[in-house]
C-alpha cells in the first residue's frame, strides 16, 4: 500500500533549500508500525534516503494523504509525538475512527506515504516558565511532544492525562518522563475525576505558567471553564481541537468574488468553501469543520457569522477574514465580498 506523489500537489510553504528542510508534499517511508492499544497505532515515518527531516515545534502536526487515488482519498492531520529537535523520524499515533485513520492502520513497514508538513499550530509560548499540559484520550499526542521538548530544554511541567482504562496510548511514555523531578503526571479515568483534577491543578500554578490542552470537545470545555473560574487570563489558556461540534445547515447567502465580480449562491447545507471549489478556485482546505484554519479567506465586506474554532475573538470582531468551510453570512440573503 504505497502512495505516489500527486504531481499537482501545491507546495504551500517554500522552505529552506536543503532537502532536510522540505515541508511540502513528499513521500516518506513507513519504518515501523506498532499497536499502542487495540484502537491506536504508532506509525514511524522516515526519509526514504535516510536523511534528516525538517525540525518542528512541539505540538506540530503532519498531513497525510490517506488512500491516495482511491475512493477514500483524504488529507488527515496527525500530531507528531517527539520533541521536534533535529528529527530523523516523524512519529504519529493514530486512533482508528474513520476511513482515513483505518487506512493508516493498514500501513506496514516499507510503504510510502505522501506527507506534508510539519506545520505548527499548537506551539509552546516563548515566555513560558512552566507548563500545565492537559491530554484527553488520543489528544495525548501533542501533549507528549510538548512534555518531551520541555524535558529536552530543561523546563518543568505538570501533565494531566484523562483516559479510559486500557485505552491510554503513551501512558508508559508519560510515566517514564514523570520519573524526573521537573515533570509531574496526574491521571484521571472518569469525567468527574478529570473535572476535579483540572480545577485543582489550574488553581495551583506558579506565575508564568501557560496551559495547553488537547482532547475531545467536552474535556476542552471543562478545561476552558475551569481556567476561567480560576482567573486565568485568556492568553495563558491554549488548546487544540481535533473534533468540532455539529453545525446547523445555516442561512442562504451570496458571495461576491472581488477579482471578477462573480456572485455565488451559497444555499443552506453548502459551505462557502464548497461553492468556491465548485467554481474551480483552488482554496486550500483540510479539516472542513472549522478546526484547522486552512481555508481562511479574506473578507472585504459583509457581516459574517463566525462558526469556526480557530479565529480569536479579536479577529472575528475585526471581520476581515473568515473560514470558508463553516462560517457564513450573518443574516439570510446577505452578500459577503471575499477578496479572491
Amino acid at each position, binding site marked *: 500500500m504505497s502512495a505516489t506523489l500527486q504531481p499537482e500537489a501545491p507546495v504551500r510553504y517554500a522552505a529552506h533549500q536543503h532537502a532536510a528542510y522540505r515541508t511540502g508534499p513528499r513521500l516518506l517511508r513507513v519504518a515501523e508500525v506498532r499497536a499502542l492499544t487495540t484502537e491506536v497505532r504508532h506509525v514511524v515515518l522516515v526519509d526514504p534516503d535516510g536523511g534528516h527531516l525538517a525540525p518542528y515545534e512541539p505540538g506540530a502536526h503532519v498531513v497525510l494523504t490517506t488512500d491516495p487515488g482511491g475512493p477514500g482519498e483524504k488529507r488527515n492531520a496527525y500530531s507528531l509525538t517527539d520533541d521536534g529537535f533535529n528529527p530523523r523520524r516523524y512519529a504519529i499515533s493514530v486512533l482508528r475512527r474513520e476511513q482515513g485513520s483505518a487506512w493508516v492502520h493498514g500501513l506496514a513497514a516499507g510503504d510510502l506515504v505522501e506527507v506534508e508538513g510539519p506545520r505548527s499550530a499548537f506551539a509552546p509560548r516563548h515566555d513560558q516558565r*512552566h507548563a500545565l499540559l492537559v491530554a484527553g484520550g488520543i489528544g495525548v499526542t501533542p501533549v507528549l511532544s510538548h512534555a518531551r521538548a520541555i524535558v529536552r530544554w530543561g523546563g518543568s511541567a505538570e501533565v494531566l492525562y484523562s483516559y479510559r482504562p486500557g485505552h491510554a496510548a503513551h501512558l508508559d511514555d508519560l510515566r517514564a518522563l514523570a520519573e524526573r523531578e521537573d515533570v509531574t503526571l496526574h491521571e484521571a479515568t472518569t469525567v468527574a475525576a478529570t473535572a476535579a483534577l483540572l480545577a485543582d491543578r489550574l488553581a495551583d500554578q506558579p*506565575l508564568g505558567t501557560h496551559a495547553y490542552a488537547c482532547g475531545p470537545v467536552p474535556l476542552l470545555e471543562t478545561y476552558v471553564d475551569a481556567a476561567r*473560574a*480560576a482567573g486565568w487570563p485568556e492568553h495563558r489558556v491554549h488548546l487544540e481541537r481535533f473534533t468540532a461540534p455539529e453545525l446547523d445547515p445555516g442561512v442562504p447567502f451570496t458571495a461576491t468574488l472581488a477579482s471578477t465580480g462573480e456572485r455565488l449562491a451559497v444555499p443552506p447545507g453548502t459551505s462557502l468553501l464548497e461553492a468556491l471549489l465548485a467554481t474551480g478556485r483552488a482554496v486550500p482546505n483540510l479539516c472542513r469543520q472549522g478546526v484547522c484554519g486552512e481555508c481562511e479567506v479574506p473578507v472585504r465586506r459583509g457581516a459574517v457569522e463566525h462558526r469556526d474554532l480557530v479565529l480569536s475573538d479579536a479577529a472575528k470582531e475585526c471581520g476581515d477574514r473568515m473560514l470558508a468551510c463553516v462560517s457564513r453570512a450573518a443574516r439570510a440573503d446577505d452578500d459577503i465580498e471575499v477578496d479572491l
Partner: protein
Amino acid sequence: MTTVEIAATGIAATGIAATEVPLGLPHWPAVPEPVDPTAATVLVLALGGHPRTAEVAGAWVREAEGRVPTRLVVADDLATGHDDVVAALDAVRIGVRIMVVGPQHDVLLTLARCRAHGASGAELRAFVVDAEGPTDLPVYCAHCRATHRLHGEPGGTAVCTGCARLLEIHPHHSAARGSFLASDTGTEPDDQVAA
C-alpha cells in the same frame, strides 16, 4: 472592559484607544483602575511612604477582599521591601492580579520584577503618585551600563551618578529592565549649569 496592552511597558490600561498610546513610554491611568472582576486572587504592592499610596492601596484592598483572597505587601523602600515582594511573587498562583502603587521609580522597577517572575500585562495594574513632571526615575546609563535613580523626565537631562556624564533621558522605556534609556548629551554638566 477593554484592556489595551501598552507597547514597550506592557502596563495594562483601560479604555484607551491603541492609537493614542505613546510608544515607548509608560502610560499611567489618571485614576486608579478597578480590581479586575475576573481575578481569583489579588496582590496589592504598596511602595513608598506617599499618603496617596496608602489611600489607593487601601481602596484596592477594600474593593478586592470582599470578593477574593487578597494580600497587601507594604514596602517603604525597594531595598528593605525587596524580600517581601519576592516572597509574595513566589507565593502567588495564576489567577492573581498584581496591583502596584507608589512613585514611578519604585513602580517601574517592581513591575519589571513582576515580569521577571513571569507576570504578563494582563495580570498587572499600576498607579503612580507622581505621574506629572520631573520625578525620580530608574535610568539606564548606556555608558556605565547600570541603572541609577535620577531626577528628571523623558526628553530631559540628568547627571549620571555612576559616570558623571550629562545624560539625555530618552523617551524609551524597557519593560524588562524597568528603566529609561539614557545617553551622553555631549556636553559637560558644568557647561549646562553655566549656560
